[in-house]
């Protein structure tokens, strides 16, 4: 329709430049236009008195307008309006046609697979038309780009598992850099599983002015589908501790309905939660809290129960790996005076088989009472003054101790303990704690997650009730009952604290997990933050022991809270060797990069260590590789490897220096084939439209494809010729003239002016 009226396709007008071809200069045109306007106006005005009275108003102006428009149009036409546009020289340019050949294109919709739909669209004349005007190169795009001779070759090739449009385009830009490519036509569903197309690829095409025309296949929305987008869970945990997993998902077609979100370890359900779906397409986030169980490498399945009509059920569950460790953790607890909280904390921790507390208590002015020590020499000289001694622990608890109890060297050591060693630090409320102990003005004030108040007398022996914050609702530290929705209620029912301390204001990066009402004010109770490689927390009370003494004998709230808090404090404290991979789940591609951070006895980076990785795979496959140091970051080592088979892999990374072992770490990962393609099966129209818009092409639907050959000529890439197209003989101009004249005549007749 557009082309019928305007003679040329829309692309011409959007890309082209409007010019006037007439020989005479343009200013004459302007003068003539003004003259026409003026002349007509004068003409009408002079005739006005003689005309009938009812025409002496705006109607005269309307007539003048129409006559002027007519005159202007004719004048412009005299100057030969035209449009200049770059057009590809036929037969001198190459059009690259890429057909996405990945597994997602094999999904059948309406009886035909996406790929066959693509082939059909090409076969229906588009390819022939293109071949008439240009040289056409056909490519198969999966992970790599392969040139094929004819469309039939697509059928014989095995489909690649994953879609990687970005890789394919990159390869095209790279390999065919010398060729005059006029345009690229990409037939795909856009379901890129490698994370999309990066800006580098797009800018390459833009700088070469190659437009990428994308043709989208596949339903843009599956009518009924639930899909889990991601599940995030900590890769390491201590045995028998709580884990929190954040799951995000979306659905179509089930808005308002309910289903169950579960996490399973093998067959065993660790936790289940009923979820209600929001509106279609909206991404929802839910948190699941569950027990990590005994030590070992676990594969956790996060699943949403499928609802009846759902076709694709494979994308209802994702797998994640967690390494549950059982190595013992030790905490050093320094207490300044005998207090009930001290005793009850020790009692709460005595049943924990993994975490143990070694404590030193100032019982009298010159005596320190030690408990939980492993041998008589431990802490015999008081608080550790050497790195060796202190860094042996994974966390530090400081009770009612004024900061100047620690010598400046010891204070530095504490700071290094958190920052460099990655340990945890917990400060409790008390007579000589926090603000009342000078912590706010010490050099350790930086470590704290709060800005302490600048006054004395912040510790009050008055009752304070407790309350969970919204951040605390999702935290593994503060979960006291299995059902998270009842947790806040449980917290409200806890006995009041025996005392409270004003802890000031939380710092911007800190998280307040619980608050208390003390002295008619709402104060932060439990504040945590990460610091350096470690973490710090403040519990602004020494009165939680009432949760033990004032609740029934069977109640385990106090024990549970302290065990969870202390486990949080130590779980992420790293050892001397920390091994990691960018992602523990490999989908269809076995390439993996191991990284290891190695520290020496003082927890300083050990750049001269010898690091090896021993890998055990499925079916007994084993490998041993040496890791090479990273030149930019001393103490970091890398190794690249490929997991050939799908399955679970276990890697042990050992580091040694001068024949002495520095440490070791265990890492698990898994390769899963054929899973990724079941996710994001909808046509990613967004991606395809962006790709074409940013490179100057257009997004096409398969039905519109027949127009492609004519429109594709208009491109600035390749070998082009600038063509000037006349506009004067556009049918629309003829129609316009007709319209102006006839409307003028009709109006005149209507108003009785001849």
């Amino acid at each position, binding site marked *: 329709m557009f082309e019928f009226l305007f003679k040329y396709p829309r692309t011409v007008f959007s890309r082209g430049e409007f010019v006037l071809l007439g020989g005479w200069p343009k200013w004459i045109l302007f003068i003539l236009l003004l003259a026409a306007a003026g002349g007509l106006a004068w003409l009408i005005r002079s005739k006005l008195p003689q005309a009938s009275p009812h025409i002496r108003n705006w109607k005269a102006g309307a007539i003048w307008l129409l006559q002027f428009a007519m005159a202007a149009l004719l004048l412009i036409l005299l100057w030969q309006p035209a449009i200049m546009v770059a057009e590809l020289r036929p037969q001198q340019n190459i059009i690259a046609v890429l057909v996405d050949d990945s597994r997602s294109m094999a999904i059948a919709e309406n009886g035909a697979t996406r790929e066959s739909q693509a082939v059909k669209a090409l076969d229906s004349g588009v390819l022939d038309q293109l071949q008439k005007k240009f040289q056409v190169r056909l490519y198969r795009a999966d992970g790599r780009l392969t040139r094929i001779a004819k469309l039939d070759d697509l059928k014989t090739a095995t489909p690649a598992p994953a879609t990687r449009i970005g890789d394919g385009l990159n390869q095209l830009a790279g390999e065919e850099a010398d060729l005059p490519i006029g345009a690229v036509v990409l037939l795909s569903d856009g379901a890129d599983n490698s994370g999309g197309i990066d800006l580098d690829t797009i800018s390459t095409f833009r700088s070469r002015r190659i437009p990428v025309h994308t043709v989208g296949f596949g339903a843009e929305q599956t009518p009924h589908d639930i899909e889990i987008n991601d599940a995030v869970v900590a890769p390491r945990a201590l045995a028998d501790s709580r884990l929190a997993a954040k799951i995000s998902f979306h659905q179509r077609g089930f808005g308002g309905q309910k289903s169950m979100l579960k996490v399973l370890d093998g067959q065993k359900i660790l936790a289940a939660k009923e979820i209600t779906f929001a509106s279609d397409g909206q991404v929802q986030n839910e948190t699941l809290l569950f027990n990590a169980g005994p030590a070992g490498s676990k594969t956790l399945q996060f699943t949403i129960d499928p609802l009846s009509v759902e076709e694709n059920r494979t994308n209802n569950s994702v797998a994640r790996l967690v390494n549950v460790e059982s190595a013992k953790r030790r905490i050093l607890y320094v207490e*300044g*005076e*005998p*207090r*009930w909280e*001290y*005793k*009850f904390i*020790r*009692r709460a921790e*005595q049943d924990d088989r993994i975490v143990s507390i070694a404590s030193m*208590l*100032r*019982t*009298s*002015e010159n*005596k320190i*009472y030690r*408990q939980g020590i492993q041998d008589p020499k431990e802490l015999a000289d008081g608080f550790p003054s050497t790195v060796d001694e202190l860094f042996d622990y994974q966390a530090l608890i400081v009770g009612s101790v004024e900061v100047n109890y620690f010598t400046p060297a010891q204070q530095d050591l504490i700071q290094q303990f958190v920052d460099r060693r990655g340990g945890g630090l917990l400060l409790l409320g008390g*007579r000589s704690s926090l603000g009342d102990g000078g912590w706010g003005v010490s050099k350790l004030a930086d470590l704290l997650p709060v800005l302490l108040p600048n006054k004395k007398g912040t510790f009050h*022996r*008055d009752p304070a009730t407790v309350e969970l914050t919204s951040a605390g609702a999702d935290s593994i530290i503060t979960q006291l009952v299995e059902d998270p929705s009842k947790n806040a209620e449980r917290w409200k029912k806890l006995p009041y604290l*025996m005392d409270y301390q004003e802890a000031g204001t939380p710092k911007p990066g800190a998280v307040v997990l619980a608050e208390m009402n003390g002295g008619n004010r709402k104060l932060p109770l439990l504040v945590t933050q990460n610091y350096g490689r470690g973490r710090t927390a403040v519990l602004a009370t020494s009165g939680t*022991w*009432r949760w*033990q*003494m*004032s609740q*029934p*004998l069977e109640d385990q709230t106090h024990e549970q809270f302290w065990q969870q808090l202390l486990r949080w404090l130590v779980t992420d404290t790293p050892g001397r060797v920390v091994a990691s991979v960018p992602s523990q789940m490999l989908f269809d591609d076995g390439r993996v990069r191991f990284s290891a951070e190695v520290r020496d006895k003082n927890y300083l980076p050990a750049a001269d260590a010898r690091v090896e990785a021993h890998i055990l795979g499925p079916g007994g496959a084993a490998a041993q590789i040496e890791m090479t140091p990273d030149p930019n970051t001393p103490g970091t080592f890398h190794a690249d490897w490929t997991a050939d088979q799908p399955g679970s892999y276990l890697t042990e990374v050992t580091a040694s220096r001068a024949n002495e072992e520095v440490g070791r770490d265990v890492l698990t990962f898994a390769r899963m084939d054929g899973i990724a393609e079941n996710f994001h099966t909808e046509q990613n129209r967004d991606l395809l439209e962006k790709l074409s818009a940013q490179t100057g092409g257009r997004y096409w639907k398969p039905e519109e494809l027949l127009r492609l050959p004519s429109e594709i000529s208009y491109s600035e890439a390749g070998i082009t010729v600038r063509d000037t197209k006349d506009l004067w003989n556009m049918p629309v101009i003829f129609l316009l003239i007709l319209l102006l004249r006839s409307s003028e005549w009709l109006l005149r007749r209507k108003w009785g002016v001849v």
Partner: protein
Amino acid sequence: MRLLVPTSIVFLLMSMSTGLLALQRGGFQEDPYSAREARTYYENGDLKSEYAWSRLRYSSASNYGGYGFYGGGNWSRDYPKADRQFLIALKRLTRIQARPTEQVVTLDSDDIFNYPWVYAVQVQTWTFTDAEAKRLREYLLKGGFIMVDDFHGTTDWEHFMSGMLMVFPDRPIEDLSDKDELFHVLYDLSERFQVPGEQYVSTGRTYEKDGYVPAWRGIRDDNGRVMVAICYNMHLGDAWEWADDPRYPEKFASLAFRIGINYVMYGMTH
């Protein structure tokens, strides 16, 4: 008119004896050191503290030496001077922030759970209702600690046990060895001897009734912690109370203080 004088004399006598009776039954409401006033009696201005010496007022078995002739018998024996003196020593010798005045707790309310360390004397006279026994049992199992003192001889022991068995019918009572942590928390008390009451000054005897041999015994919980510390055949309360009497030997008072302080320290660390 004739009967006025005898009636009024009789009336006077009756009211006096009733008053005496009430006094001996523990009606301390007017006593300046009474429990309620102790809580409001400021000495150093800081009433609230981490530790408060808590003396257990238990119900007495009515048919045994309840209101003994010696006056001030059973739970309030040596109260409050013994408590006060002990607190002075505690403050001087440890870093425990203790309230300078003592207080009395009972098993009738849940208030006792706010004071995880209690002291009871003359426990041969104690007895419990079911509710009281349950409360004491839970109190101890949850982390509380009780020190019992000043009961002597076999008869006293039997009566003590009848009360104790109401609380812990199944738990054995064991002798505490010299190596027990209780005797080494702050002071090392491997060598101990019998601490007599004030009667030593006049009689020269360290024992009372037929309690010739002192015994430090205890009841442990499932983790081996001593919850009930039993001081049998000794009178630590008197030693604290008469420590300032020049006739009362210093060595007894010293040991008594040390034992008490160790017990408090143990209760606050285990």
